[in-house]
């Protein structure tokens, strides 16, 4: 007969219903008996080391307690999420200890006032500063544009003077271009005539 496997040995050891059928084999087989003896020693050792349960108070667990705790936890998370959202929207959160306990206040970044009129005054002041800065910038840009315009006029004058000095004008250029065009056309007509390609010859202008 085959030796008992791990499961069968445990069934015998723990007196499981299936274990009864393997007991006879255990009595006849030295190898299985040795293995069983080791397990038995292990079981006894584990039982001897079983931690004794001391007297302990019954834990106070109730639905109501957990519900309140859960609600508090949810509210805390909700408040934290709201504070995070406000801080992302540009608000600054400040925590401090007041007379009534811990106080949390929100203000826009860069503003020190915590009341509405103070905030408005600060915002107006900041707006004025911004407008002044913008004015200065526009003035600066106007001056730059005026300087560019002046430079352009100067360049134009210098350019015209230069063209006059070398006798090169737009009108002169146009005339020269027309003469070159006429010459090219006449040459082309002459070539066609010599080859006898012209049938209805037009008078040369």
């Amino acid at each position: 007969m085959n030796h008992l496997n791990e499961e069968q040995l445990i069934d015998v050891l723990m007196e499981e219903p299936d274990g009864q059928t393997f007991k006879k084999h255990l009595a006849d087989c030295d190898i299985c008996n040795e293995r069983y003896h080791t397990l038995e020693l292990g079981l006894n050792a584990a039982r001897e080391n079983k931690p004794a349960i001391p007297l302990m108070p019954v834990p106070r667990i109730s639905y109501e307690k957990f519900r309140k705790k859960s609600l508090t936890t949810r509210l805390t998370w909700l408040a934290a999420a709201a504070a995070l959202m406000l801080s992302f929207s540009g608000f600054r959160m400040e925590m401090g200890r007041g007379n009534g306990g811990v106080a949390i206040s929100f203000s826009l970044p860069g503003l020190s006032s915590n009341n509405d009129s103070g905030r408005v005054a600060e915002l107006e002041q900041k707006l004025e500063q911004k407008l002044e800065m913008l004015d200065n910038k526009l003035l600066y840009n106007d001056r730059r544009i005026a300087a560019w315009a002046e430079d352009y006029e100067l360049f134009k004058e210098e350019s015209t003077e230069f063209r006059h000095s070398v006798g090169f004008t737009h009108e002169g250029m146009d005339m020269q271009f027309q003469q070159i065009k006429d010459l090219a056309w006449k040459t082309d007509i002459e070539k066609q005539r010599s080859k006898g390609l012209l049938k209805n010859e037009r008078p040369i202008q």
Partner: protein
Amino acid sequence: MEQLLDTELVKLAQRGEGRAFDILVGRYQTRVTHLVYRYVKDSDLALDLVQDIFVKIFRNLVRFKGESKFSSWLFRVAVNDCIDYLRRAKLRKEQSLDRYQEFGFDVADEHRSVRVAENLEDKEDRVRVNRALAGLPDKQRSVVVMKIYEDMTFDDIAEILEEPVSTVKSRLYKALNTLGGILRRREFIERGVQ
């Protein structure tokens, strides 16, 4: 309401019936506390862990679909919590050992070594077995706790650990074989001396 089955109480608790939840807690809190204590061997810690376990059960009760018994689910959460705790504790101990190696001494170890030395002759095996028990892999240890200490059936343990019964028995075999092996070695040595 006390006479209702677990499944009926769970359904009522899922509908917000606080009394049903309290009855379930009353039914199992002592067993859960004992189970947890067998793992951590510290009553204050066990009570804290039991609170955490029931908080988890409270939070996840709505999602419990009754695929396993409520008690199996509860004990599964408890066993997993205990294993997690022991893992964290082991990690802390290892970190403490690193400090020991770094600084060259550890006050806790000094006390322990004195305590062990006092009882060395008569409790040598017990210390070894205790160490071996503490050093067992998590699932083997869980089977020892549930089967030998808490006297649960193999079917219940299998459902709690979500493993086949044969695997549970095999784990118990390995655990007891490890513990028995320690004592067998001593037997052989004594026989050899005689």
